[in-house]
């Protein structure tokens, strides 16, 4: 496929590995923010082929992993209602709440449907006027424009049987959390290419300056990751701390202005709880007051529903790069894709799932049998 296959060419990759080896002189820890980047890194073994001076740690950029348990539990309570058709992206279906997941609710008779686009959920609402159709609006800045446009479409059509559970999170406030973490070792970030496609890179400049940390908006193919690492390492070795765009085929300085305009029309920034990490100021989006009737949490009286999280899941510390999945005692023992303790093991882009799928096959670590 064009604009994908070319970026997986091993011959070009080898040139990048060589250029990185020639450039690096000191140890550096770099965080790739996005779960999609984590998946590419672990799948292609990029971290294992980089010079040993470079450590890649995996960031919090997996919206499924950071969705708090109480948001999942709200979804379960709503999805169990007989009058509801509950729509969600596929990767949310198996994320564990405190007692079940959407897949179990579906198995026990709930009408839970996987959709590819929020517009599919709007169509289902149009086709089922007697049902309450609820969409699980999870995601980062990349997904907000789609959800905002779908909501406006529903409103313009007068679909009063459509609503959303909104669990949107934003990257920049989380980079601050990582930079301010007590023994933070992250020296540079590979920012999420599609978040920056929508938002642009302007919001990252004060972070790079304040924390003296290079930030490179990077794509998702092996070549993108390698060029992103090289750009970050060149900056680090030269003592620079700037924002650069590696993923230029999609990212521009101001992102997609039309998309940002629609998002700010429908949503407003708010504090948000991140699973395993806690509440982070203005790190999420919620519906503006004029769209309150589309807020499923309020519509079904669950706005202040709260739940405590599972302590022996260390995903919070893995999400900010403090630990690797293999540092967790439950990894591969009580926590596996079949019996996940936390979302980072379920989500296809979670660091734990990536390690379990791509690392447990070889001997670089063994699964501890209880």
């Amino acid at each position, binding site marked *: 496929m064009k604009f994908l296959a070319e970026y997986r060419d091993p011959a070009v990759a080898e040139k990048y590995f060589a250029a990185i080896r020639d450039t690096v002189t000191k140890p550096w820890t770099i965080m790739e923010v996005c779960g999609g980047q984590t998946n590419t890194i672990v799948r292609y073994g990029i971290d294992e082929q980089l010079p040993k001076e470079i450590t890649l740690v995996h960031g919090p950029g997996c919206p499924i992993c950071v969705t708090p348990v109480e948001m999942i539990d709200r979804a379960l309570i709503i999805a169990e209602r007989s009058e509801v058709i509950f729509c969600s992206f596929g990767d949310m279906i198996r994320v564990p709440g405190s007692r079940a997941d959407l897949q179990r609710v579906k198995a026990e008779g709930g009408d839970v449907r996987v959709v590819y686009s929020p517009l599919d959920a709007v169509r289902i609402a149009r086709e089922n006027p007697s049902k309450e159709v609820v969409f699980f609006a999870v995601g*980062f800045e990349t997904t907000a424009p789609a959800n905002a446009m779908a909501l406006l479409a529903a409103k313009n059509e007068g679909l009063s049987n459509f609503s959303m559970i909104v669990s949107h999170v934003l990257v920049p406030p989380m980079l601050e959390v990582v930079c301010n973490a007590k023994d933070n070792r992250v020296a540079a970030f590979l920012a*999420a290419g599609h978040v920056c496609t929508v938002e642009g890179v302007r919001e990252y400049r004060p972070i790079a300056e304040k924390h003296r940390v290079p930030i490179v908006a990077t794509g998702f193919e092996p070549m993108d990751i390698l060029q992103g690492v090289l750009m970050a390492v060149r900056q680090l070795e030269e003592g620079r701390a700037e924002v650069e765009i590696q993923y230029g085929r999609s990212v*521009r300085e101001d992102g997609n202005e039309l998309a940002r305009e629609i998002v700010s029309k429908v949503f407003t920034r708010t504090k948000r709880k991140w699973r395993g990490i806690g509440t982070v100021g203005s790190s999420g989006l919620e519906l503006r007051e004029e769209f309150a009737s589309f807020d499923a949490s309020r519509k079904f009286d669950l706005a202040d529903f709260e739940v405590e999280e599972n302590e022996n899941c260390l995903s919070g510390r893995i999400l900010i790069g403090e630990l690797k999945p293999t540092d967790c005692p439950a990894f591969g023992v009580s926590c596996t894709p079949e019996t996940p303790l936390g979302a980072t093991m379920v989500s296809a882009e979670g660091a734990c799932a990536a390690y379990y799928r791509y690392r447990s096959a070889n001997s670089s670590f063994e699964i501890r049998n209880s």
Partner: protein
Amino acid sequence: MCLGVPGKVISIDDSGPLLMGKCDFGGVRREVCLAYTPDAKIGEYVIVHVGFAISKVDESEALRVFSYLDEIRSLK
């Protein structure tokens, strides 16, 4: 997290409330909302996420990853 796949615009439909179109993803054809890339033309590529085009692929930038190493070597 935010899987985005490049697709080639093969048809555009502005008859409905939202600007829609069909894109080809290496043989798979899907309906896509083009409301956020209103200037995308047939034959051009867009990055598609959850059924929405979020950017038009900049074809000249797309080649830079292959020339970047020569650029920095010439700086040395």
